[in-house]
């Protein structure tokens, strides 16, 4: 953890000890903490009663067992729903307007596309278009990413879509600690938050301190370096760190910036790093064309001009294939990131 970016809620005194847990359990624990603290927080979606399809709606009981949240909070607050994505999303908007703080589970982002009117035209516009009469304190969880040979309709990373929409916050946590801290922050927010966990990170273990505060819109310097800045988020953070290891062996110091929140995004942190290293590589799993990396690259080019050399790496503009050699074409792994970094350094 970078102390500059992460503050403790209570300074000094007794801090709860960090515990080791997975990215999935970190989210479950965070949601449980929010539900204990605020009776208005409810969760709704398919298969929540048994703990969520990825086990991300479970928390650790006193005896150490992982139990579904529904056992503690009941079926009226952890709500199993029909396969009705539009109504899950739209009902969450109505719940929020009527005074609850819903966490809507859409299973995967690809399914969430069945509820886009409810998110884009309703949730995102409501506060503005009705002149501030209502608020939509809504968190929509819609996991992204290539996972388990799941092919074209279960593998997409669509964060750029949502970053394009005024009225939405977009969060892409990459670590168990951030999944705990950012989900709590998202639930606390009065804004509609699109919360994009990565399906290949569910089992990732890490230390999680339950009182860490990560403000929305604050990047983290995941690794310091002087020669090249890699801006990334979600699962590609880990590929970028592996690429930085490889480049370190070649004498190149990479600064890896985990954006964590795509909207609002931490322009200051990115510009500060790029001013220092004078080289920017943006790396993400989403399709490169019209990806959010383009926004970062263009912004840095506008601000820093020729004093910063810029490159992007993302997936080719092809659907994710099922067969391993086809799927591999869509993956933005450490080797590809390192190769892109070398090309940038040689330019």
């Amino acid at each position, binding site marked *: 953890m970078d102390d500059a970016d992460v503050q403790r809620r209570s300074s000094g005194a007794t801090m709860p000890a960090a515990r080791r847990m997975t990215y999935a359990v970190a989210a479950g624990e965070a949601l449980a903490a929010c539900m204990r603290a605020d009776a208005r927080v*409810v969760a709704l979606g398919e298969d929540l009663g048994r703990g969520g399809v990825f086990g991300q709606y479970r928390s650790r009981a006193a005896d150490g067992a992982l139990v579904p949240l529904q056992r503690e909070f009941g079926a*009226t*607050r952890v709500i199993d*729903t*029909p396969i*009705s994505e*539009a*109504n899950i*999303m*739209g*009902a*969450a*908007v*109505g*719940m*929020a*307007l*009527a*005074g*609850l703080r*819903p966490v809507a589970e859409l299973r995967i982002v690809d399914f969430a596309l069945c509820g886009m*009117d*409810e998110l884009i*035209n*309703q949730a995102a516009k*409501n*506060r*503005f*278009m*009705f*002149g*501030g*009469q*209502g608020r939509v304190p809504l968190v929509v969880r819609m996991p992204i990413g290539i996972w388990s040979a799941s092919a074209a309709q279960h593998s997409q990373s669509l964060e750029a879509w949502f970053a394009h929409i*005024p*009225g*939405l*916050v977009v969060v892409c946590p990459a670590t168990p600690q951030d999944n705990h801290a950012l989900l709590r922050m998202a639930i606390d*927010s*009065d*804004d509609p*938050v699109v919360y994009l966990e990565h399906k290949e990170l569910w089992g990732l273990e890490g230390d999680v301190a339950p009182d860490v505060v990560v403000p*929305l*819109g604050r990047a983290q310097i995941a690794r310091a370096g002087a020669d090249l800045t890699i801006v990334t988020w979600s699962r590609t953070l880990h590929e970028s760190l592996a690429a930085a290891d490889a480049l370190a062996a070649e004498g190149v110091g990479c600064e890896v910036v985990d954006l964590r*929140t795509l*909207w*609002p*995004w931490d*322009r200051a942190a990115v510009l500060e790093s790029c001013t220092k290293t004078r080289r920017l590589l943006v790396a993400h799993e989403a399709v490169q064309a019209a990806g959010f990396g383009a926004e970062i690259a263009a*912004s840095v080019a506008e601000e820093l001009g020729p004093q910063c050399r810029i490159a992007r790496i993302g997936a080719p503009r092809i659907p994710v294939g099922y067969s391993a050699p086809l799927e591999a074409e869509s993956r933005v792994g450490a080797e590809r990131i390192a190769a892109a970094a070398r090309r940038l350094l040689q330019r």
Partner: protein
Amino acid sequence: MGSGPAGFSAGRRERLLALYRTMARIRAFEDAAEVASQGGVQAWGLEASATPALVRGPLHLSTGQEAVAAGVCANLRQTDLLTSTHRGHGHTLAKGADMTAMMCELYGRATGCNGGKGGSMHIADFSVGMLGANGVVAAGIPIATGAAHALKLMQREAIVACFFGDGAINRGPFLEGLNWAQVYALPVLFVCEDNRIAATTPTATMTAGEGAAARAQALALPVLQVDGNDVEAVDRAAAELVARVRGGTPALLHAITYRFKGHVSVDPGAYRDAAEVARAREGDPLLRVRTELAALDANGERTRIDADVQQEIAQALAAAAAAPWPEAGAAYEQVLDAGAGQWR
């Protein structure tokens, strides 16, 4: 607003006068807005007027459909919630919104109920439980079910009334929302305001089966179908269904009515049979109430209502014309708390 239709003629007289007042206010508002919108939309092959319209953009008028809004909302309380359609002025007025704030909104003024940010298509008054007109067909249905779900979880007494048109029953959220409401036994009254035309397409040509009522019956919702131009019939049916909804079951009211105007105010509706429109106008729901009121010897009160309404709409128009425009900076407000001030 009373709590239910009265069975006795003295009560009936007062009830009908109250319903008439709501209907007359809606008609006056729609007529005034229509005039103010002339030249406002450059569509339907029309040339823009030399004089800029006072009300800009698409204006969907509910002229001819007033009995549905009045009859249903007469059975609602201020704490009840309501979701509406793109044709939502009538529902908003009937739910108790202020006519002047509404006209200011149509004029795009800072004093509008939405601060000029929504206009006709997004008219809303949360202070009376009116959660908004909506530019997307059927979009209010999931929102209404969610609001009802919240009311139930929070153990509030209130219910939700969810208005939508006949076109909405061919969108997925109609099925998802009705199923959802029934599965969780939510306090929501679905009101299909069936004006028999979806934008410019006759609904019957695009709808399989028997329409909203039949589809709701398939999901085992209590259903009533009424002549939506008979305000007393709407009032009675709404009272019966609202009582069931307050008891904890969703229900659907299928009210058959007729849209006198085109899809938007500058659409002459030339695609409809003139004889059909003429027949519908003979059955104008306001004229029907006037006939009933005359039979109840209530012409004096009715005339006073008409005078009140004319005064109210004149004041609303004058206030709207004199009201200030929003500051340009308001365009940047009420978007997000997170990253407020970050626009690019």
